C-alpha cells in the first residue's frame, strides 16, 4: 500500500451545490454565492445542445467536481471501457477538482438497474473493488472519491460493518472518500447502528467531500430520496463530522422536487453557519 494520497494536503473548495437544469438560467443571470458546483457526469455525456452549452458557461464562473452514478465499481462485469472513455473526455472539458462515484454496483450481465445497489461487506468485495479503483485511477489520472450509499438490506454473508468495509476499500485502493452524512443517517436508522461511531471510524485524511441531503421517512425505514430539506438530526451529524474531519468541501444534494435556487442557498448558508465556527475553533 502506498501512502501517496494520505500525505497530500486535502483540497478545500468550501460550500457547493449540485448543478440542476432548473437553475441554469438563474445561475448565469445572478451568479449566486456558491463556491463550487457538482455535476452528475452522466447528464453531460451527450454530444451537444443545452446540457453542454450551460455546462460550459457555468464552468466559466465556478469550480466544479464530477459525480457519477453508473461506474458500477463493485459490479461483477468488467469495467465499462466506453463509459470510462466518455468520463475522461468530459473531465477534459470540465477540469474538475475530482471525480466521484458510489461504493456500490448498478447492474450485472450488461444491464443497468440505475440504482446504487449495496455490496456485501466481504473480503472478496474489498479486493474486487480495490483492484478496479486502481484501474480507474490509472486511467482517469485525477483524484477519485468513493461515496457511501444508503442501503435497505443487510446481506447474510456480510462479515464487516459498513464503516469497516468503506475504510478497508479506501485504504486498499488508496482512494479518497465522499462521505454522505445523510446516507450514514439513513443506513444507521435502517440497520440500527450508531451513526457517530461510523463517523469516528473513517480515516480523517481520506475524506475530501461531504454530501448533505434530505430523505423520506416511512416510519420503520427511511428511503434516501434527495427530495426534501436536510433534517435537524442530519445537521447535528454534520456538525459532529465537521469537528472530526475539519474543513471538508460540503454540498447540498437535491435530485428531485427541486426547489427555487434561493431555498438551496439558504440551506447552504445553514451548512456554512454550522461548520465555519467549528473549523475556526479548531484552528484557534
Amino acid at each position, binding site marked *: 500500500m502506498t501512502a501517496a494520497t494520505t500525505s497530500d494536503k486535502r483540497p478545500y473548495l468550501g460550500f457547493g451545490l449540485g448543478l440542476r437544469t432548473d437553475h441554469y438560467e438563474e445561475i448565469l443571470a445572478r451568479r449566486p454565492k456558491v463556491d463550487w458546483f457538482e455535476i452528475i457526469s*452522466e*447528464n453531460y*455525456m*451527450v*454530444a*451537444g*445542445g*443545452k*446540457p*453542454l*452549452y450551460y455546462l460550459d458557461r457555468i464552468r466559466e464562473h465556478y469550480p466544479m467536481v464530477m459525480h457519477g452514478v*453508473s461506474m458500477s465499481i*463493485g*459490479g*461483477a462485469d468488467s469495467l*465499462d471501457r466506453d*463509459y470510462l472513455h*466518455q468520463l475522461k473526455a468530459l473531465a477534459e472539458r470540465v477540469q474538475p477538482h475530482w471525480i466521484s462515484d458510489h461504493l456500490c*454496483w448498478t*447492474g*450485472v*450481465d*450488461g*444491464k*443497468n*438497474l*440505475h*440504482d446504487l*445497489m449495496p*455490496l*456485501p461487506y*466481504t473480503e*472478496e*468485495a474489498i479486493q*474486487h473493488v480495490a483492484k478496479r479503483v486502481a484501474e480507474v485511477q490509472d486511467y482517469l489520472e485525477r483524484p477519485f472519491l468513493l461515496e457511501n450509499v444508503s442501503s*435497505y*438490506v*443487510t*446481506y*447474510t*454473508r456480510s462479515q464487516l460493518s459498513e464503516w469497516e468495509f468503506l475504510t478497508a476499500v479506501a485504504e486498499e485502493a488508496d482512494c479518497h472518500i465522499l462521505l454522505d452524512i445523510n446516507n450514514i443517517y439513513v443506513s444507521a436508522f*435502517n*440497520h*440500527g447502528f450508531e451513526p457517530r461511531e461510523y463517523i469516528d471510524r473513517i480515516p480523517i485524511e481520506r475524506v475530501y467531500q461531504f454530501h448533505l441531503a434530505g430523505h423520506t421517512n416511512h416510519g*420503520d*425505514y427511511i*428511503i434516501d430520496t434527495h427530495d426534501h430539506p436536510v433534517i435537524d438530526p442530519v445537521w447535528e451529524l454534520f456538525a459532529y463530522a465537521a469537528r472530526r474531519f475539519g474543513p471538508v468541501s460540503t454540498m447540498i444534494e437535491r435530485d428531485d422536487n427541486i426547489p427555487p435556487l434561493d431555498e438551496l442557498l439558504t440551506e447552504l448558508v445553514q451548512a456554512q453557519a454550522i461548520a465555519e465556527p467549528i473549523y475556526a475553533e479548531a484552528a484557534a
Partner: protein
Amino acid sequence: MSPLRDLQRDFQRYVTQRDDAMRNQVVDTAQVSAETRLAIYADGYRLRLLEALEDTYPALKQYLGESRFTAAGLAYIDAHPSTYPSIRWFGDCMAAFLRSDASPCDEPVVAELAAFEWSLRGAFDDADQAVTTLEDIAAIPPEEWPVMHITLHPSVRRLDLQWNTTSIWNALEDGATPEPPEQGEYPTPYVIWRHELQQYFRSLPVDEAWALDQAATGMAFGDLCEGLCEWVDAEHVATRAAGFLQQWTVDGLVCAVATS
C-alpha cells in the same frame, strides 16, 4: 463463478423479475422483514424507470393518461431492461415496442407519437455544429452548382407520419384536448432538427422530402435536380431545388457546402 457475481445475479433477478433466490440472503429485523427491505429495491427500480419514460415521453403520457401509460411503461421496462450508463437513453425502443405485439396499447397512433417524441429528444442534445449561411452558398460559382453537395446538421432527423400525430402533439403541448387520431391517405414526411438551442419540426412536400433524404447521403445538386423531374417540370426544377436549399440553409439544417 464468484460469490459476488452470484449475489448480483440473484438480486438483479429479484429486482427485475421478483425471483425468490434473494429471500434468504438478506437479514430480517424485528422492525422490517426481508421482503419489505427487498421490495424497496424492486419498487424503486420500476418507479425510477417509469419516471425516466415520463421525462422522455411527456405527450405520450398525457395522451394515454396515467394508468394506460403506466401499463405500457411497466411492460416496456420488463421487455427492455436498460443497458445504458445514462438513463437518458432508456426509452430508445419505445416506439418499436408500442408497434409490437407485446404492447398493451393497440392504437397505432401512440407508436408514432413515441417515435416523434424520441426524435425531438434526440435533436435536443445531438452534436453542435456551426451552420452554413446564405453567403456561403452564394460564394459557390454558378458553374460549380451541379457538383455542389451539402452536409446536414447532426440533429436533423426525418420521419414519415401516417397519423395526425403532430396535431395531437401540439394540442397536448398547449394543454388542449387533442383531436381524435386520424390516419392520412398517405404518410406525411417530417423533418425534425435543432437550431441553436431550440428544437423544430415541419412537414415537407414529397419532393422536398426526397431531396432532403438524397442530400443527406451526399447527392450533388445536379443529380438532385434530375431526380426532382419526377415531380417538377424540367424548366422549373433548378428553381425548386435552389428554393429548398435556401430554406434549409435559413432554417439551420445545413452545416457544410462543398464542391469536391
